[in-house]
């Protein structure tokens, strides 16, 4: 019987693929995130009285707040699946670098987050007749923001899952360190909706990229310290 | 331009500063005292054994 230890990339893909297959069957995570996201938007609608004048300036903020909250829900659930039945040990037992586990979980978390965004965005556009959210630049910022948010979120969810307070702790840990990625995304995508010239959104965009690079790299490197004993 | 009278704010600021530092020092002291008491109790327990 022949085996050859899989590369970091193929192990990560296997984990992401496993998560997607399980989610495709149970649909627990996505449906929870979606329902939650829609409720948040509904509440914003009345709380902020999203009429035409207000909408232009707050669309980016409303969407990002919604995605951030829904994101923590998904991150918590995705890590609980590994933790509750000890499956994390199963992953740790595989002959792959521990970074592969981080990479794999981050990939599936990102997929869930992007999927939720892909459903919420058209709904928002439909409800508020706001087609500017489909601008290519807007979608690009959405992807960049999600990457940074999910990278830190995956790392911190692995941490909070091992504490006594568990689910409650994740947003408390995540939001203060994710402030840059959320605010830069809001600033950049708000600028795009307002039709500002590209130079004006370049600064937040650069900061977003800087954050992504730093935090993807650092999370990747220090994940080992979170799972060892 | 006239100088505004803001003495009250100044006093409030210094009160807050020294109160915070004082409280912190107090908490350090109390924690230390309690730990030393614990230590003595446990050591006495150890000696009995």
């Amino acid at each position, binding site marked *: *019987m*022949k*085996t*050859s*230890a*899989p590369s970091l990339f*193929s*192990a990560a893909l*296997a*984990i992401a*693929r*496993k998560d997607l*297959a*399980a*989610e495709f*069957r*149970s649909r627990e995570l996505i449906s929870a995130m979606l329902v939650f996201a829609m409720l948040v938007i509904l509440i914003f609608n009345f709380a902020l009285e999203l009429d035409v004048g207000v909408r232009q300036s707050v669309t980016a903020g409303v969407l990002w707040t919604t995605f951030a909250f829904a994101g923590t829900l998904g991150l918590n659930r995705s890590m609980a*699946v590994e933790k509750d*039945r*000890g*499956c994390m*040990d*199963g*992953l*740790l*037992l*595989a*002959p*792959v*670098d521990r970074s592969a586990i981080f990479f794999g979980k981050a990939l599936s978390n990102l997929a869930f987050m992007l999927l939720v965004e892909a459903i919420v965005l058209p709904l928002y556009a439909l409800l508020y007749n706001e087609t500017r959210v489909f601008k290519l630049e807007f979608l690009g910022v959405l992807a960049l923001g999600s990457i940074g948010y999910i990278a830190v979120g995956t790392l911190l969810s692995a941490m909070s899952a091992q504490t006594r307070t568990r689910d409650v702790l994740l947003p408390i840990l995540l939001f203060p360190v994710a402030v840059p990625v959320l605010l830069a995304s809001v600033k950049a995508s708000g600028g795009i909706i307002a039709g500002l010239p590209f130079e004006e959104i370049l600064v937040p965009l650069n900061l977003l990229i800087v954050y992504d690079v730093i935090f993807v790299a650092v999370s990747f490197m220090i994940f080992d310290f979170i799972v*060892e*004993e | 331009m006239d100088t505004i009278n803001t003495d009250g704010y100044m006093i409030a600021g210094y009160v807050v500063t020294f109160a915070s530092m004082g409280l912190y020092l107090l908490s350090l002291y109390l924690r230390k005292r309690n730990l030393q008491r614990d230590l003595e109790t446990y050591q006495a327990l150890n000696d009995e054994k």
Partner: protein
Amino acid sequence: MIEVKKLVKRFGLKTVLKGLDFSAQAGEFVALLGPNGAGKTTFLRILSSLSRPTLGSVRVAGYSLPDESAKVRARLGVVSHQPLLYPDLTAEENLQFYARMYGVVNRAARVAEILDMVGLEKRRRDLVGAFSRGMQQRLAIGRAVLHDPEAILFDEPYTGLDQDASEMLDGVLRSVAAQGRAVVMTSHDLVRAESLATRFDVLTRGAIVASALRDDFQNSNLMDFYKKALAA
């Protein structure tokens, strides 16, 4: 196959393992006996590279831990008291996933072979979440031997199983052990251990305090041996 010298493990200020020496050769089936909290699970977690040794040397299949942990993991199968399976995946998908993680060549054939071995061929398309505890545990053993490991660790594999399931598990365990592997099993069920193991080690207070071969025993004095070892 497994070579442990002067192993110390501390959790914070608590010392769980205190200079433990242990070895197991290929073909040996070692039952690790001892009361709860003696450090059996901790010991197996260190052997399986889930936990780092504080001091001492640990070698598994010729590689040392924790420096060559990936190589050790490739040659080691582990069954814990949790099945390490995903309830929302089918039996087949679970094995497929782990086969990918271990880089098993010719995946489909190997997965079919394993399902056949643990007697779950007919249930391969059923969700693991719907399996009984005994079926899950059999599948967990299948998962652990997917990559044909040189050494296998069982941590209380009988936890939560009824009589029938235990007997079925006995069969699977025997067939797994009979292939020249080194097997280490923790258990506090002396009867089960006695029928399977070739050697009995007693682990208590962080060290191995006694060791005996099956051949050393005339019938049924394992209990005496165990009690004497604990009392010493």
